[in-house]
């Protein structure tokens, strides 16, 4: 009986080792205790499985559940939360859910996107985006100051880790990489003490700690990506 049920739950994740969007999905799967097969994709030689599973965007992460593909990291995390009911990631109350989604969108549009653009640009273009990133970090710090304290370490509240933590978590492994490669600050511990403290707690979480990659490995990779983008931009 048990093995039949287990056979039904075929979960595969297509990813790149350096992708923060893939890592989020892994955190969500691990948070729920879901067994999955991880498949490392080659960015320069994408598998036919990837291309048929995500024909619109042709990128990772892709979650395949019993052969059905789900794409876009935030969509995947909500799918995981709704399909496997243990250890809820989003709150139960509709208003709390709406607030969690609001902050996840804020992080994605104002912080993740800005950091990514700043990593791939220079000069005035980079300066403009870095300024926007700083402003967004200040807004997030305000929310962190309001929500987090000695008893409430994470945005998930009394449940511990939650949706917003999983969505923001990339900052813990990638911020220092981006700072070194891009030559700008993502986080200022003086100006964002609550976020800084949240990061220190996040990286110590038992399910997060083993997933963190050494900075040096990522710096090498993202240096290459930045040079490639700047090179392309110069040709235009």
């Amino acid at each position, binding site marked *: 009986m048990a093995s039949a049920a287990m056979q039904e739950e075929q979960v595969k994740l297509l990813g790149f080792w350096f992708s923060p969007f893939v890592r989020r999905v892994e955190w969500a799967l691990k948070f729920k205790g879901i067994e999955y097969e991880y498949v490392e994709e080659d960015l320069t030689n994408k598998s036919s499985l990837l291309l048929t599973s995500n024909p*619109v965007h042709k990128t990772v992460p892709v979650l395949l*559940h019993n052969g*059905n593909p*789900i*794409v*876009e990291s*935030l*969509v*995947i995390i*909500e*799918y995981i939360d*709704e*399909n496997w009911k243990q250890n809820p990631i989003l709150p139960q109350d*509709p*208003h709390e*859910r*709406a607030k969690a*989604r*609001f902050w996840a*969108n*804020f992080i994605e549009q104002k912080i993740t996107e800005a950091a990514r653009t700043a990593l791939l640009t220079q000069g005035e273009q980079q300066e403009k985006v870095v300024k926007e990133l700083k402003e967004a970090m200040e*807004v997030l710090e305000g929310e962190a100051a309001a929500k987090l304290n000695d008893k409430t370490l994470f945005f998930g509240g009394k449940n511990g880790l939650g949706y917003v933590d999983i969505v923001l978590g990339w900052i813990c492994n990638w911020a220092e990489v981006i700072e070194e490669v891009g030559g700008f600050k993502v986080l200022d511990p003086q100006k964002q003490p609550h976020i800084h403290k949240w990061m220190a707690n996040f990286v110590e979480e038992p399910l997060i700690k083993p997933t963190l990659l050494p900075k040096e490995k990522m710096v090498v990779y993202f240096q290459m990506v930045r040079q490639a983008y700047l090179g392309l931009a110069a040709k235009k």
Partner: protein
Amino acid sequence: MAAISLQTATMAEEVKLFGTWASPFSRRIEVALKLKGVQFEYIEENLSNKSPALLEYNPVHKKIPVLVHNGKPVAESLVILEYIDETWKHNPILPTDPYEKAIARFWAKYIDDKLWPAATKVLVSKGEEQKGVTEEIQEQLKTLESELKGKKFFGGESLGFVDIAANIIVFLLVAQEALGLMEILTEEQFPVLHEWYQRLVDDAVFKECVPPRERHLGFFKVRFGSSTASK
């Protein structure tokens, strides 16, 4: 006793929507509330003179739409749609199956992340750039059309989350007409999408939530008219 519980029931459902008449994002919320038969108070905002209430309810973005339910605010149109669906469970907007729901969310996100920026760009760009963006929009419409695959609506038999999000297309077509732009959605190029579009604008609820046509055409002419030189 009965009188008190009736009063409590009406007191429990205080719903306000802060919006603007020409915003597709604001109109999305009207569609959802009307589909569910939810009574609400509509507050028209003046975006060049935002009300203290709006600034208090959406301090982060200071934007409409904002839904306020029993004093608690919800912002961001797709977030509001999900909130409405989870709070008033009859006439569902999203599918109940998690996989179908994920697909709906994917397409709504596609519309907001890809179609919306392209749509705003096409209104302010000129000449070759405008032509390029128009082609980009047509590629996106082609992609969306393939998702319809023989269904009446993206939501199936009745209009749902993705159809509501796709109201951007309706607004884009009014803008196209107002500014005399190159035709974006023709029956020849997009037969399936064209039929869907006709169903959408004929839908009893949806058509109540579209800005009045003449006023809307005038809005685009005033706002974007001077910047077009597509001919």
